[in-house]
């Protein structure tokens, strides 16, 4: 510390920031547990333990002091976001592999906290969905959850107690259903969306969880932990892109609302694209970054090979962040009139 250092500081730390993010996830988690069952908590637990263990091991290997970096809770945030994006009844090893990849490769190999160019949770998710598409597509049937013991048994031993329907653990998501339904042909989007899995707004149960993320996001914004630009831009991107397609051909494309409430759209808008480390930091850059994530999400969902696309959209835009930041530097005080030299 030099003699000239700033002598006072806000009592904020990385830990308090991360703790608030975790807190903001709680409403959504509660709703998810209500809809999807205890498996969600199990996934969260598995991810947390794996993440912290992997983080500790990597810090040790890197020769970095463990305590401050384990206490910063950033690994836990990554673990939770990843677990919440994964199928609640996915096999135990699926979340473990994804978390390991997220922490070891996407975060620590790039230099740990603050140095990862890609969102670790999204890297973990992308690895899982590319490597194990079948397992990743098997979601439990929402609102008809298995009892807790059955869920545990399924997650750990991949076997079901007698009498339980396989459908309860391997039903497709609405995004998946719509995609396969359209591929099979015969039915157009409005017809497909009359299925029970879609509920009233396109994702039975899922809309409540989405609302949970939104509540958390509003609180984070009120706490000045996330900017308004990125989430709103992403939602606008999704609505704009989906809306344009839907208006052009309502029979072939789902409505913007369907895209908003399905998949990880709102989770990403609040918690993923707002990740400061891998996202844009300039005000205009945040608008561009968020907006393009939204547009890409819809495009990949509709025209791509995977049912959900948030992870890919985020990773693609992560690549573009340095470029976006470079060209969206705000004008400095007193230099508004002139271009930056």
């Amino acid at each position, binding site marked *: 510390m*030099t003699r000239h*250092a700033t002598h006072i500081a*806000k009592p904020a*730390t990385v830990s308090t920031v991360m703790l608030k993010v975790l807190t903001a996830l709680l409403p959504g988690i509660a709703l998810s547990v209500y809809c999807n069952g205890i498996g969600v908590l199990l996934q969260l637990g598995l991810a947390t333990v794996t993440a912290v263990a992997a983080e500790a091991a990597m810090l040790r290997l890197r020769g970095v002091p463990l305590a401050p970096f384990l206490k910063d809770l950033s690994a836990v945030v990554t673990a939770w976001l990843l677990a919440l994006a994964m199928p609640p009844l996915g096999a135990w090893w699926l979340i473990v592999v994804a978390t390991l990849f997220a922490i070891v490769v996407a975060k620590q190999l790039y230099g740990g906290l603050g*140095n990862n160019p890609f969102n670790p949770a999204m890297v973990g998710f992308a690895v899982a969905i590319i490597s194990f598409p079948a397992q990743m597509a098997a979601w439990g049937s929402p609102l008809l959850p298995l009892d807790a013991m059955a869920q545990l048994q399924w997650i750990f031993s991949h076997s079901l107690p007698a009498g339980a329907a396989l459908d309860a653990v391997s039903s497709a998501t609405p995004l998946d259903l719509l995609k396969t339904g359209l591929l099979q042909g015969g039915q157009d989007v409005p017809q497909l969306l009359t299925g029970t899995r879609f509920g009233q707004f396109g994702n039975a149960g899922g809309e409540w969880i989405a609302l949970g993320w939104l509540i958390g996001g509003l609180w984070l914004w009120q706490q*000045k932990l996330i900017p308004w630009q990125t989430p709103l831009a992403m939602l606008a991107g999704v609505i704009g892109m989906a809306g344009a397609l839907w208006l052009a051909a309502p029979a072939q494309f789902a409505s913007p609302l369907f895209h908003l409430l399905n998949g990880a759209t709102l989770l990403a808008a609040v918690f993923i694209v707002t990740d400061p480390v891998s996202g844009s*930091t300039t005000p205009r850059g945040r608008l561009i970054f968020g907006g393009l994530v939204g547009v890409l999400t819809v495009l990949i969902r509709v025209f791509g090979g995977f049912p959900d696309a948030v992870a890919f959209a985020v990773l693609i835009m992560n690549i573009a962040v340095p470029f976006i930041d470079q060209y969206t530097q705000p004008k400095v*005080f*007193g230099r508004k009139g002139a271009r930056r030299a």
Partner: protein
Amino acid sequence: MSRLYDFHGGIHPPENKQQSNGTPIRQLPLPPLLHIALAQSVGNAALPCVQPGQQVLKGQLIATPDGRLSVAVHAPTSGTVLAIGEHAFAHPSGLPATTITLQPDGREHWQPRQNLPHWREAAGSELRDFLQQMGVVGLGGAVFPSHLKLAAGRLQTLVVNGAECEPYITCDDRLMQERAVDIVAGIGIAAHALQAGEVLIGIEDNKPLAIAAMQTACHGSTFRVVAIPTKYPSGGAKQLIRILTGKEVPHGVRATELGVQCLNVATLYAIARAVLHGEPLLSRIVTLTGAVTHAANVEALLGSPLDWLLAQAGLPAPATEVIMGGPLMGFTVPDLAAGLSKAGNCLIVKNAAEFPPRPAAMPCIRCGDCASACPMELQPMDLFWFAKAKNFGKAQEWQLFDCIECGACSYVCPSQIPLVDYYRFAKSEIWAAERDKKAADLARRRHEFRQFRIEREKSEKAERLAARAAEQAAKLAASQPPASATLVASDDDPKKAIIAAAMARAAAQQEAKPLSESHIQALDDAKQAAIKAAMERAAARKAAAQPAAGAAADSRVAANPPPASGMDDAKQAAVEAALERSAARKAAAQPVAGAAADSSVAANPPPASGMDDAKQAAIKAAMERAAARKAAAQQANSETAANSVSASPPLASGMDDVKQAAVKAAMERAAAHKAAAQQANNETAANSVAASPPLASGMDDAKQAAIKAAMERSAARKAAAQQDQQDPT
């Protein structure tokens, strides 16, 4: 109510002003010793004008300003100068500074005070000089000399800074509450000097008593007190100007260019005391706060030891760390034995409760809180990244130097990174690199000149050798023909002479090879140089003699082809020498002689294109005085030898130059006698060297010419004409 403008960012740290703003400014007893540092402004330290042991009166000048950015320093009280030397100094560097140590005698005897009663009529420069002599500097902490701030005219807005936005500090608050009338008088003086259209007094709204007091004092004037929202750093000059006028003063632009100037209330108070009461800046208000028993504002003499000051406020425990300035921009005082400086607005004794140790820094997570807080709208996290990576070019591109080091970013950083430290580091590294670059440029120039000099010395050596070779060739040529006394007899020998001369030329050319082009070109300009040289009056004496000698020598030498290159070298040295003023006498002589020699070089007409290059080379040559003299001396040696060799009919133009030189030279009467005498000597020397016996008529003419030149001014022309006639064209 005028419109207020917000500025981007800013922070709201705990104010902690209530500890010290409730009690009136205390007057302190005299401290046992005063340590008055001479560096009391942003400029050079003042120069002491008293001696140790000297008795001084209160207000007596003890150090005079050294340069524009420096201000005078005065004895804060009457007493004895104990010492002038290095003493602890309140500066973040921790380095001691030249300090006058004064022992107060307790009598507080003032020297006669001289105010500036006619300040309204006084010229701007008179007021500014007065303030510089009164030692008035900005008392907000920047200690920028006030006289320089009053240099502008026809100002649109004078912004008076009473914002005092940093936590803990309340000295301006109390000053405004208690001495508003004097402040307003100071505003009147500054507004008059700056011809300010309007005066806006910005005070943060957490100082209602100060606002009220200032409003009362401003009653009846056009000055307007404006309460501004409390937000750090609203007291930064750029921010306050923005708040009150909406104008943004970019880095590197003076506020006055936008028609605004900003002065602190304490500074204006000091201006009023100086101008109206003749009191130099001897004391200032200091907030003593933090872990002291009686936090308060005191009026302290400059130079009061800081530990003594803190003791006046009551220290329950020995002070461990003391901040001078505010908690955001202040620095830890390296040594409390230092005396109070004009920058010392606040002393905070750190306590553990309010100043917990900063947690260890974590990596930047690019949360952008710093960018949200930055009042200059910078991207502090990017600057941090660049500074950390020592990517200083990029940091500058990202406007590092716009950073005002307010510390808002460091304050909000959740990773607890001391961001401002990184910016200070980057700035100092860039400054150091610029200094290094300047030093390197100087070294490069020196090196280039050294290279040039070495080359020239080489060429001089070459020409010496060439001359020697030519001399030997000439001797050889001279020994060949039998001692026939007539010019006609030598008609048989030309072939041998030509061979000898050619050999000499070849040798000379070999020697001359290392010569750079510019040198060779420089030679061709010999005539010009000769003219210039000849124009030097001082040169006239010798000049009068030698051209005549050279011309005479030429005229009597038989028609042999000249060794051209050797001659050129000789000329070059002459040019260099000629341009050197101090060497003028010698130089003046040689070039003319050289020109005379040139005239004998029938085969080598000078290329005109080389003139510019030649000039340049000549200028460079002139840069080295000593070398030029040497060159001139060497020239003299080679000349005599060369002249004896050269034999071809001289060019008319060459002769003209000689004439000119001769004319000017001859204009100096007194010189003429000497010239005549020297002529005689030269002649004999020339005779002894010249192998073929000179023509008697030539000798006579030459002598005649010299004599005539000596006899009167106008004779010089005739002499030249006669020389012309002598030429065996």
